[in-house]
């Protein structure tokens, strides 16, 4: 796509990108866990400009009104809610967690996680495809947390997913884009599919890098929530994302192996006089 077409496209839509037919105003999707206090969470979400926040569901004891309190808090933010199936190890767990989430949060959006391994929290891509297939048939709009594997991505799209969320690095590591080559390949291979880098981002520069590659959005949590100042870090990520996206639309220069002077060579003083003492 030409730079002009990209710029025109972004100018004609107020939404940053569209997923399942819904325009999303921000390219930052923010997790709601691990903040030092509910107020810091609220302030961080506002500072980030995020249009979508992720949430979960957990066991609740009788008379513990934590669920209602959190629901009221999120309701006051005026953002879209994307429930997750974090912690699910099997398709059955993920499917039934998604069904409970749909009733609780009154949305058919689900961030589908089927986790394969405790140490890496990497997606179980076989279970992921199986669960996505079932949920899509039940009318869910599935946001699958997946790897960069193109074959898996094809299966997820065939199952009915209209967005893919490849990991940057394992959840909570803050290592940034561990495999930029594979992510760039995925972006190029699926030019028309909304792609969100989910997990592993630790710094605004990581988010900027994903944006420069042309990813539609990033989803992060720990990097903001665990910052010394989460609200300032939320703002920093918003800035990184804005810079990276603008750079993508502006069209980045090609990298080259050898140096090439930026200052004109013609007219260089003493040019051609040789290298005498």
């Amino acid at each position, binding site marked *: 796509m030409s730079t002009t077409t990209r710029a025109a496209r972004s100018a004609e839509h107020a939404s940053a990108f569209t997923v399942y037919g819904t325009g999303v105003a921000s390219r930052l999707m923010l997790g709601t866990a691990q903040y030092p206090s509910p107020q810091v969470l609220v302030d961080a979400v506002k500072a980030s400009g995020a249009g979508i926040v992720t949430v979960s*569901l957990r066991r609740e004891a*009788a008379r513990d009104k*934590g*669920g*209602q309190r*959190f629901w009221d808090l999120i309701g006051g933010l005026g953002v879209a809610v994307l429930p997750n199936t974090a912690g699910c190890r099997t398709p059955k767990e993920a499917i039934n967690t998604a069904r409970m989430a749909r009733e609780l949060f009154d949305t058919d959006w689900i961030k589908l996680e089927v986790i394969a391994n405790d140490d890496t929290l990497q997606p179980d891509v076989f279970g992921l495809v199986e669960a996505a297939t079932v949920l899509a048939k039940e009318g869910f709009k599935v946001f699958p947390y997946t790897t960069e594997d193109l074959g898996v991505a094809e299966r997820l799209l065939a199952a009915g997913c209209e967005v893919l969320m490849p990991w940057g690095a394992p959840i909570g590591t803050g290592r940034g884009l561990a495999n930029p080559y594979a992510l760039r390949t995925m972006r190029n291979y699926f030019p028309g599919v909304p792609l969100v880098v989910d997990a592993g981002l630790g710094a605004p520069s990581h988010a900027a890098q994903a944006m420069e590659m042309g990813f539609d959005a990033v989803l992060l949590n720990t990097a903001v929530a665990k910052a010394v100042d989460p609200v300032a870090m939320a703002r920093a990520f918003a800035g990184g994302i804005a810079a990276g996206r603008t750079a993508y639309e502006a069209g980045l220069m090609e990298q080259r192996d050898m140096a090439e002077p930026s200052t004109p060579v013609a007219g260089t003083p003493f040019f051609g006089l040789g290298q005498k003492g």
Partner: protein
Amino acid sequence: MTLAEKMNETTQSRLVVNGEAVACKAATLAQLLAELGYGAAKVATALNGEFVPEKARAATPLATGDAVEIVAPRQGG
């Protein structure tokens, strides 16, 4: 075992609720939520790993050994 205990045994189910052993009189999932004091709490439920919609709770019978999940909105990434 006293007579009272025997009678209790016939009217009580032993369930696993959110991973913990619970003895209760409730015959249905809706009755269980009331008996445990959830009231009108914003929760979703599953029985033996399968989602039970709110409107189906009253018609969902419970038996000893059943595993019930009662969950609510929480922070997530």
